[in-house]
């Protein structure tokens, strides 16, 4: 029998109070340097306290408890600074996929290390030529006895420069249709032959990276799932990603921030209304309320879809609904913020960085980021129409022909 949940809550509350620092704005500054080092330490504290990996299997360092325990711990952790970075993608996407497809040895080697805060993971899926077409992978992995040799390039990996391992999708067979010749590898990031370059984003952040592989040697024992069946693994990985980004992964630990930046936007919008004295403006009031309604609906939707998936009543692909709602919500709320901000979105005092106007304005630059990362809105709409609703699949010109014969960008 598990510990009674209210006992668990009391124990978590007491422990958090004694061991974790209070939450500060630094926790969600995407541009802060050294934040990952802080989080590694925070995760180690959680591990030492016995609260790491609440829903991960006990066999691999987790607690093996039901999602309700994670919810309770997350609730209680709201006032504290937590290792948010580990949630996405390490815990909720990569470790989750490893739980599903890793060998016993792979899990033993990596899951406890992840839960201790020793390993941050990222995914190497997208390629410069590829966009949303992840299976249109050109990075190659050529077999040479007990190893594969990787060459190619990946892009849009979030935080790769400061992470340790990646799951990397590569083509191992060019003579079969695109989805059938792919393999997923566990790849140590910082090793000879791997070059990581940071990409500067429109808002000045350097979160995304591009990687270049030059004869990188990977042992066959680091294949996840079956050779040439990497698409099965990647599909699961993407399902975990949609769940995580949409807000209903049981592997996420800690409340809201780290996966829901929108609460901050709403605070910014309300702050703007106050700063600009628009409390009595019926137009501004409508906008503030609309932003708030979106948040309330979002929470209700996450609850509905998560429970639907858990109960088997809704397709696992329904996570796409959450991702699309989140992304389109960010678009609309940013628009609302700009409308309310008026001219303070154009320029701000040199001495006072992070005015609400500046925050809203810079957020608007980055607005489409959430509509692109983790599967674009277009991909989510394809998934909803085709996989959730069963509408006919879109015509693809690259289906059922050997991948080497497929027409590509610039070709």
């Amino acid at each position, binding site marked *: 029998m598990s510990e009674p949940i209210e006992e668990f809550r009391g124990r978590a509350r007491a422990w958090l109070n004694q061991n974790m620092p209070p939450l500060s704005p630094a926790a969600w500054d995407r541009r802060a340097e050294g934040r990952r080092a802080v989080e590694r330490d925070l995760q180690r504290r959680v591990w030492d306290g016995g609260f790491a990996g609440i829903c991960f299997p006990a066999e691999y360092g987790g607690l093996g408890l039901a999602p309700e325990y994670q919810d309770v711990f997350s609730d209680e952790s709201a006032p504290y600074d937590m290792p948010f970075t580990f949630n996405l993608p390490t815990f909720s996407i990569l470790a989750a996929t490893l739980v599903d497809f890793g060998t016993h040895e792979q899990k033993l080697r990596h899951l406890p290390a992840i839960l201790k805060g020793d390993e941050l993971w990222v995914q190497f899926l997208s390629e410069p030529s590829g966009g949303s077409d992840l299976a249109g992978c050109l990075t190659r992995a050529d077999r040479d006895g007990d190893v594969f040799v990787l060459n190619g390039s990946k892009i849009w990996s979030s935080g790769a420069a400061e992470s340790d391992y990646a799951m990397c999708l590569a083509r191992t067979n060019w003579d079969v249709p695109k989805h059938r010749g792919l393999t997923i590898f566990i790849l140590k990031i910082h090793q000879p032959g791997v070059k990581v370059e940071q990409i500067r984003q429109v808002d000045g952040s350097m979160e995304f990276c591009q990687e270049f592989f030059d004869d990188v040697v990977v042992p066959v024992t680091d294949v996840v799932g079956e050779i040439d069946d990497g698409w099965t693994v990647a599909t699961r990985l993407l399902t975990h990603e949609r769940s995580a980004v949409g807000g209903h992964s049981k592997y996420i630990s800690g409340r809201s921030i780290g996966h829901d930046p929108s609460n901050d936007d709403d605070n910014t919008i309300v702050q703007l209304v106050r700063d600009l004295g628009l409390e009595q403006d019926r137009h501004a*009031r*409508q906008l*503030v309320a609309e932003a708030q309604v979106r948040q*309330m609906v979002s*929470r*209700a939707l996450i609850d509905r879809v998560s429970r639907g998936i858990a109960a088997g*009543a809704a397709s696992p692909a*329904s996570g796409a609904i959450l991702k699309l709602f989140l992304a389109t919500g960010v678009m609309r709320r940013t628009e609302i913020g700009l409308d309310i901000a008026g001219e303070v979105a154009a320029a701000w005092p040199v001495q006072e960085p992070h005015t609400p106007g500046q925050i809203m304005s810079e957020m608007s630059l980055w607005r489409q980021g959430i509509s692109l990362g983790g599967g674009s809105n277009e991909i989510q709409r394809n998934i909803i*129409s085709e996989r959730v609703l069963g*509408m006919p699949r879109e015509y693809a010109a690259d289906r059922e022909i050997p991948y080497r014969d497929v027409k590509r960008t610039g070709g």
Partner: protein
Amino acid sequence: MTPLLDDRVACAAVELDLTEDQAFFAQTTRKFLAAECSITAVRALESSDDGFDRDYWRRGCELGWTSMLVSEADGGGSLSDHGILDLVLVAEEMGAAVAPGPLVPVSVVASTISAHGSPAQKRTWLPGLLSGELIAAWVSGDGAIVEAGAQADVFLVTVDGEQRIVAAADATISPLVGLDLVRRFARVEISADAGEPIGGDGERELQIAVALQSAETCGAMQRIFDVTLEYMADRYSFGRPLSSYQALKHRVADNKMHLEASHAIATAAARAIAEDAPDANEVVSAAKSYIGAIATELIQDCVQLHGGIGVTWEHDLHLYLRRATVNRATYGTPTEHRERIAATIVGAA
């Protein structure tokens, strides 16, 4: 297209954590409506004065439609601990069938009499409301239009947070004509000293009205969404089914998102009322402002996806569009409910 309807039921079941009793109740209501309330029957009521058949309503009441918000001591009784969670199932089924009947006003008034009425008030009105012999309507504020105002035997009148019970004989009633083929409204004038005081302040009443209305609109949206999806699969254009066109698929995907979001916030509203949550007013207003605005857009897009047939009298789409449009406009518009939410965030206007 049975699989889709099954999917809807399954989803609702998950969301509302239906008990066996509740599932049976919903199913009984669905079967009753299917038998008694075909679209042909609804259309036939267009020219009737009441917009619903009295006998139909009495038999609905026998199924428990009006008893869920009335305490057992008063002759009512719900299936779960929270009658509102049972009653939204009826509302959703009625939406799916664009069924007639004064579910919202009778529920609101019966609930208030059961919660706050004197023994005499209860004796006078509750048996008739429970059996369907009597009809009640809710007059909220000065000058508002009143659902079932010309059909009501008794009014609950809410003005500035004070409530009274007034017999229809003491009111001046001007029937209106409206957009919905079977839902009737009236203007009702009542002198300030008519009737007897009763407790409550109108907030709970509004919560119940909006929660039922939201569930009804969700039922209507879901039905139209399903019908449209089926139509798109069957209809060929340029040698391909409509459902194979990506531009249409993406719109349907957006509609599916809005539909699920609507169900989700409707459920959240009912639960917030059931649990007497501190933010119940806010959640209810979120439901109204979201569903009210999205429902007409979603159904209009389904009209568009149907093509010309969608704007004919013969096709049933417009009955649902009328219902959604009227629901949007009554018990507070989306704009008015957003204003209520704004008041909680940045203060009263």
